[in-house]
């Protein structure tokens, strides 16, 4: 491989133009005691062919969903990613450009972000979306920061049914933001609106999921109303792929809608890169973090797109900025846009309906006791009667990953398995899961 083009002749001519004898002279200002006087201790360089063999070997030692029948969800979902998404993402112009600081060079990127913002607003029922956050965890911290700046209050409320990683990330950054975090325990698998509302007194915002981490459907309109009644900003953490079937957060009074965008057209890729989305009612536009693209015209009156309200951002406002974010997840957000455009409104509803229907079918077919007596979406929690990690380990030996062990995050759930269905699974796959779980549980008994 060679990613540089300088020949010996080039070097000599360039050094002469600079007026130095050698490349070493260019580094003369680096004091001797901070120079590295030995080669880097890293493995020798590989050719592309050697690298490909090495990476293929590494990849081959992973069990992806192509080699193992998997019912894992818990925040990352195995929806089908169509070929058009990868094809467009590999367009070198979109792939290798950067932040569109110079709009005349970047109308393609800017228009794609504008179209993405529109899609997110449509799905969530909001007025404005940023160009993306890092993932579904960091946008929750962003929402807390927006709420603190807006309300001046210093407490945030999280439903315990929110993805544990989302709660962990909020807790990591809350002290620096000057925020205290309060969690509201679940009651039988969902959040009780009265209990939630009571916790919201004097809170800046209150974040709840829909569907929740157990797969259950929260009484979202009631939770939003309970938070709003106290002056806390209601924030829904939602999955884009459910929003063809489930109500938009904007329709039940949320101030912000956030979430993990992976399920829309991003490969699971062992956790990233994906994108987080953050949308809000127009009242909050000047407090939002990150890039926002707006429409304008050029000198001849032609439509064009630019980064707008940049006075919120760190490169202008520095320590007074609404966030420190600069590099975001634009390419993944555009992948989401292309996927959503590929599906259209009917396709989006079909994906949601298929996942929901398969999950209901799996509940019946498995016949295991449900951990919670609540309506669910594409995931549901069952009691196995023995530790879930053991069942997972044994089922994997039979080629099936049966789901996520909720005991990793919640007390008293050591035998609870969270099973996820997407439109990629079939009734035959569910038969196979039932058979394997039956065998594994029989072995134990």
């Amino acid at each position: 491989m060679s990613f540089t083009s300088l020949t010996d002749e080039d070097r000599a001519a360039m050094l002469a133009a600079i007026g130095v004898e050698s490349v070493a002279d260019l580094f003369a200002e680096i004091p001797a005691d901070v120079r590295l006087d030995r080669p880097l201790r890293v493995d020798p360089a590989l050719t592309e062919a050697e690298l490909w063999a090495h990476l293929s070997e590494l990849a081959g030692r992973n069990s992806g969903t192509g080699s193992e029948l998997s019912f894992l969800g818990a925040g990352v979902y195995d929806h089908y990613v169509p070929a058009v998404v990868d094809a467009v993402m590999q367009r070198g112009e979109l792939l290798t450009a950067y932040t569109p600081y110079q709009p005349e060079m970047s109308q393609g990127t800017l228009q794609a972000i504008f179209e993405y913002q529109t899609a997110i607003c449509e799905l969530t029922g909001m007025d404005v979306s940023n160009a993306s956050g890092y993932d579904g965890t960091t946008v929750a911290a962003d929402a807390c920061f927006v709420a603190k700046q807006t309300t001046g209050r210093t407490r945030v409320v999280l439903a315990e049914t929110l993805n544990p990683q989302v709660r962990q990330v909020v807790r990591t950054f809350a002290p620096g933001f000057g925020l205290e975090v309060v969690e509201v325990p679940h009651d039988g698998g969902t959040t009780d609106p009265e209990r939630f509302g009571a916790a919201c007194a004097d809170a800046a915002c209150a974040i709840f999921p829909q569907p929740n981490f157990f797969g259950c459907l929260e009484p979202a309109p009631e939770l939003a109303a309970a938070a709003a009644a106290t002056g806390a900003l209601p924030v829904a953490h939602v999955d884009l792929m459910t929003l063809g079937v489930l109500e938009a957060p904007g329709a039940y009074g949320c101030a912000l809608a956030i979430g993990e965008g992976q399920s829309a057209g991003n490969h699971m890729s062992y956790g990233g890169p994906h994108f987080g989305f953050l949308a809000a009612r127009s009242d909050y536009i000047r407090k939002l973090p990150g890039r926002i693209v707006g429409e304008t015209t050029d000198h001849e009156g032609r439509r064009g797109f630019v980064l707008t309200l940049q006075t919120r951002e760190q490169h202008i406002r520095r320590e007074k900025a609404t966030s420190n974010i600069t590099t975001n997840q634009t390419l993944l957000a555009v992948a989401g846009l292309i996927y959503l455009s590929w599906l259209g409104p009917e396709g989006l509803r079909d994906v949601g309906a298929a996942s929901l229907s398969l999950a209901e079918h799996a509940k019946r077919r498995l016949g295991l006791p449900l951990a919670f007596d609540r309506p669910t979406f594409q995931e549901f929690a069952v009691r196995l009667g023995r530790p879930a990690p053991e069942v997972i380990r044994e089922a994997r030996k039979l080629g099936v990953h049966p789901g996520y062990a909720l005991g990793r995050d919640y007390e008293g759930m050591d035998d609870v398995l969270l099973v996820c269905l997407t439109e990629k699974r079939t009734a035959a796959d569910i038969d196979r899961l039932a058979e394997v779980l039956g065998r594994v549980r029989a072995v134990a008994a």
Partner: protein
Amino acid sequence: MKLIYEKSRAGRRAGRVPDPGVQAAEVPAELARSQPPRLPELAEPELVRHYTELSTRTFGIDTGFYPLGSCTMKYNPRINERAVGLPGFADLHPHQEDEGAQGALELMWRLQEMLAEVVGLDAVTLQPAAGSQGELTGLTLMRAYFADRGEDRTEVVIPDTAHGTNPASVAMAGYTLVRVQTDMRGNVDVDDLRGKVGEHTAGLMLTNPSTLGLFEERIAEIADIFHSAGALLYYDGANLNAVCGISRPGDMGFDIVHYNLHKTFSQPHGGGGPGGGPVAVRRELEPFLPVPTVARDGDAFRLDYDRPKTIGKVRGFGGPFGVFVRAYAFMRMWGPGLRDMSEAAVLNANYVLARLRDAYDLPVDRHCMHEFVVSARHLKREHGITALDVAKRLMDHGFHPPTIYFPLIVPEALMIEPTETETRETLDAFCEAMLAIAQEAADDPQTLKDAPHTRPVSRLDEAAAAKRLLVRYGFEDHPTSE
């Protein structure tokens, strides 16, 4: 050109979803969607044409020279894109058991080791999503470190040349900002610094080479000032491309370092992201790193959550794995030759600087590292031509403009970073364009003021955008301009 929503026609569609062949289920009526979202409705051929057309209205590194200072716009190897698509990587669920993800974990572990060696520090977290998140992570580590020692330190020092992310991160981490000036040689003003470091100081955030593209010559002395006061040094790795294999932040005295995998190690910038912002620390700070990190036991690798003093998590899972695959691939193709990479980057930058030095103003007359800053001050004074005009006119010559108006201490700044991957011919063509523009400023300033002349749009009215605030398509209510 039309928006995809303007090409939409009811009843068209591209993707179809398999019929699950099971009894249809519904959600409770009170939770069901009331109005369908107005997503675009197109068949697949028009979808592909639309986004292909958008790509042609975008300028990337693959299109041409992109000397955007501080962003390290180097060539992104294509093998990396093929590698992330390997099914064992792309289709790997992040909750997969460690036994089912040994290849991914080994890759992450090896990347941690290589990154630690490049900066000369002890331990690495791959988790942060981008450079600015690395900054916030590093400052949160500082906070945890001092809390653990029972010390109440509230101030972080940054130079006036710093990236905007530094002060923003300081504020988000709950610290008070203390600014230090730059001296006549472009270094941190050490005399100014001495008076600003004391018992309340948590640390310094510094980019080295600085945003002026200059190596901080008194770095050892600066490190001593902070360490003597019990404070820590944070290295903003935005400019690491200058010094790989040449000088290591750990050896300079830095305690915490963030990398920008999308700059130094070639993750494609994607029109704004994704990035990768791993953080390396000295041994004393390791107990506070986010969880999980990747640990090795003999031939087996595992996610390690056993870190009682951890600051917690800063994003989901172990970090942006696809970014790791690309960075790892890139580093394995260079190997110890990463030093040659940095040398070529510095040679290219100095060559462009040498060719432009007579036509533009130099804030400081020194050899640069991987980038440099010139000023269009005299063009503005004599001809009314600003850095913005120069930038816009470069587009007509087929180049992406440099970073402009940064660093803030240089008026009419143009910050130029060629990277190691450009040919001498490209650099020459760029220099000739810059020289022609300087001449044109005298001969025909109006052509410069009206530039660009060759892009799909001319200069856009940014003030109007902020006033109208059209930030989404309005469907039937949308103004009809095209």
